[in-house]
């Protein structure tokens, strides 16, 4: 009885490359190149990958903070017919924005320094004409309490708060309109570890309290392992593997996932960092290699990998941890290592 909240099919976002005096269109940076996934109500889906893999573009396209080039994004509002976010008019989009919110990485850049905390958190309420002035003020107090800030600091400006507290302000703002889906883009990456743990706990707690669904974009695999139910791994604009967190991290099926996991340093001196030979750099999405984009860096690659793009296939599961899908020609033959080896 899965209850889908978001169904993304074949999402693409191309940024045109223009050259010369006439700004001739010479090609595209395929930031997101045919990504499909679904998100269930109340779950946390992690999006991981190296910089430039398109995880942020995917997250932003879902909210239409970036206009996708093509594809469909169906959003299922509770008890209503699904709507395709990409087809909505301005007014329809405005309504939907209440249901979908975003938390940003940089708590210094995402809050207006000239607005007080009260104004910042109140702004979404004001935009949507929620309640009277007095009710709005009460709601701000309530929201601040929910995220663990003392409402008496309401009239202060963001610069008087620490990084962790600012991130809480950003979360309060995102919660103001009772959203169903929150896209958290590197929401804890800029925080110190002790503060990061506090904010992660808050994110988990709010999910239970308000039945939130998260798309959690992060590059820190440890954090993703801790808070996500399912994880999607991206590589140059495409998803290469999607699975339940434990299944993905214990028995990855894509060589890229394996290499990524092997490169994560652990806070454990007995663990020897034996990264897989992953030579070379992340390939620039403007010059995507043929076939499987990972093949130039992959140690298992053969002729087939360079020639044909692998399709997403479902992996037969030994246990019933939910579905595991991978886009690799050789996943059946490969015995890959996960985080425990």
């Amino acid at each position, binding site marked *: 009885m899965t209850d889908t909240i978001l169904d993304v099919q074949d999402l693409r976002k191309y940024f045109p490359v223009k050259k010369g005096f006439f700004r001739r269109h010479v090609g595209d940076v395929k930031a997101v190149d045919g990504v499909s996934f679904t998100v269930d109500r109340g779950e946390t889906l992690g999006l991981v990958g190296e910089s430039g893999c398109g995880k942020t573009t995917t997250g932003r396209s879902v909210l239409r903070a970036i206009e996708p080039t093509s594809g469909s994004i169906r959003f299922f509002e509770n008890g209503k017919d699904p709507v395709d976010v990409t087809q909505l008019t301005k007014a329809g989009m405005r309504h939907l924005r209440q249901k979908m919110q975003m938390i940003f990485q940089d708590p210094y850049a995402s809050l207006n320094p000239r607005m007080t905390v009260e104004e910042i958190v109140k702004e979404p309420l004001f935009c949507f004409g929620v309640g009277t002035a007095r009710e709005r003020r009460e709601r701000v107090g309530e929201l601040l309490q929910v995220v663990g800030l003392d409402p008496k600091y309401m009239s202060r400006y963001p610069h008087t708060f620490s990084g962790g507290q600012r991130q809480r302000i950003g979360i309060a703002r995102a919660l103001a309109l009772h959203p169903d889906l929150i896209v958290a883009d590197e929401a804890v990456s800029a925080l110190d570890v002790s503060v990061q743990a506090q904010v992660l706990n808050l994110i988990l707690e709010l999910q239970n309290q308000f039945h939130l669904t998260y798309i959690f974009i992060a590059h820190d695999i440890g954090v993703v392992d*801790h808070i996500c139910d399912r994880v999607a791994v991206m590589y140059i604009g495409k998803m290469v593997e999607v699975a339940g967190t434990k299944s993905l991290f214990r028995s990855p099926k894509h060589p890229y996932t394996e290499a990524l996991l092997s*490169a994560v340093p*652990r*806070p454990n001196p007995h663990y020897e960092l034996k990264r897989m030979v*992953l030579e070379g750099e*992340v390939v620039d999405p403007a010059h995507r290699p043929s076939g499987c984009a990972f093949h130039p860096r992959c140690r298992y690659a053969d002729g087939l990998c360079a020639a044909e793009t692998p399709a997403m296939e479902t992996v037969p599961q030994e246990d019933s941890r939910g579905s595991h899908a991978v886009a690799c020609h050789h996943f059946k033959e490969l015995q890959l290592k996960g985080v425990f080896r």
Partner: protein
Amino acid sequence: MSDRNRILEISDLKVEFNTKEGLVKALQGVDLELYEQETLGLVGESGCGKSMTARAMLRIIPEPGEITAGSIMFFVNGQWTDITKLHIDSEELRAIRGQRIGMIFQEPMTSLSPVHTVGSQVAEALTLHQTVDRKTANNRAVEMLSLVGIPDAKSRANSYPFEMSGGMRQRVMIAMALTCSPNILIADEATTALDVTIQAQILELLQRLQNDMKMAIIAVTHNLGVVAAISQRVSVMYLGKIVEEASTVDIFDDPKHPYTEALLLSVPQFSETEEHHRRPLQTIEGDIPDPYTQLPGCPFHPRCTKRIDGHCDRVVPEMIVLHDTRKVRCHLYQQGGTTT
């Protein structure tokens, strides 16, 4: 560890910033030693003074900060020199800076000149410190670039930083810092801005170069995973002081200071079981206090779960030597104090 030779000894180092808003005591008496060819991890959260300690060694503390007390003894050319006593424009300091002690920074884009080729920037490090002609310097630069794993170094030497990826730029920084074969390399958050796959490559590179060039590394970082991977000893800093010092294995397996312990527990770890999955993480209560406030007693006491009321908030703890490689600054380990 102690049978090896010391090459750096910092004692009671204090750095203060006299700003309009008030006096910031960035370093409040740092003691640190470094042995030949070892890697020392200097860890802590933002504002703890780890970068300031590293910068003090090269006397590149930003204005209006100044060293108000303490010494930084550096063993070079067969004798001990106190870096804090050198004149800021002196030849001796210039000879140490960049030549005997190299440094790599977090953001390779802002630390490289955008208008010079990477080859000329690496060569400059050499011509500044040694009497070599330009041709030799350029050849050496290409050699260094290929040593740090830049493919096709000869032609890449003519590239500008903006033409390179973050990982490649960081390699250029390393090449620059190492051209003069320094005795100490300070890596200040050197891999923080990089992707994990590239980070792993750079960490491997640093370890390889350390073996080849026989240098000591001070790895300044907040990433406990990086520290565990590359350092033999760790110093943990909190608010301008070193609160614990031990071998890497001891720090991670048996942390003594409540701050170290709490810090380790707050990092999400891969667990074999699902029992911790999506469960609340251990946290350290409260925030790092702002730099203008001077807390009485142990600076960690307001956030500490093991504090002894009436003692920790009044008396400043001394560094207690548990045995020759372990030191901790905490009242819990004082003789006669309660231990848990």
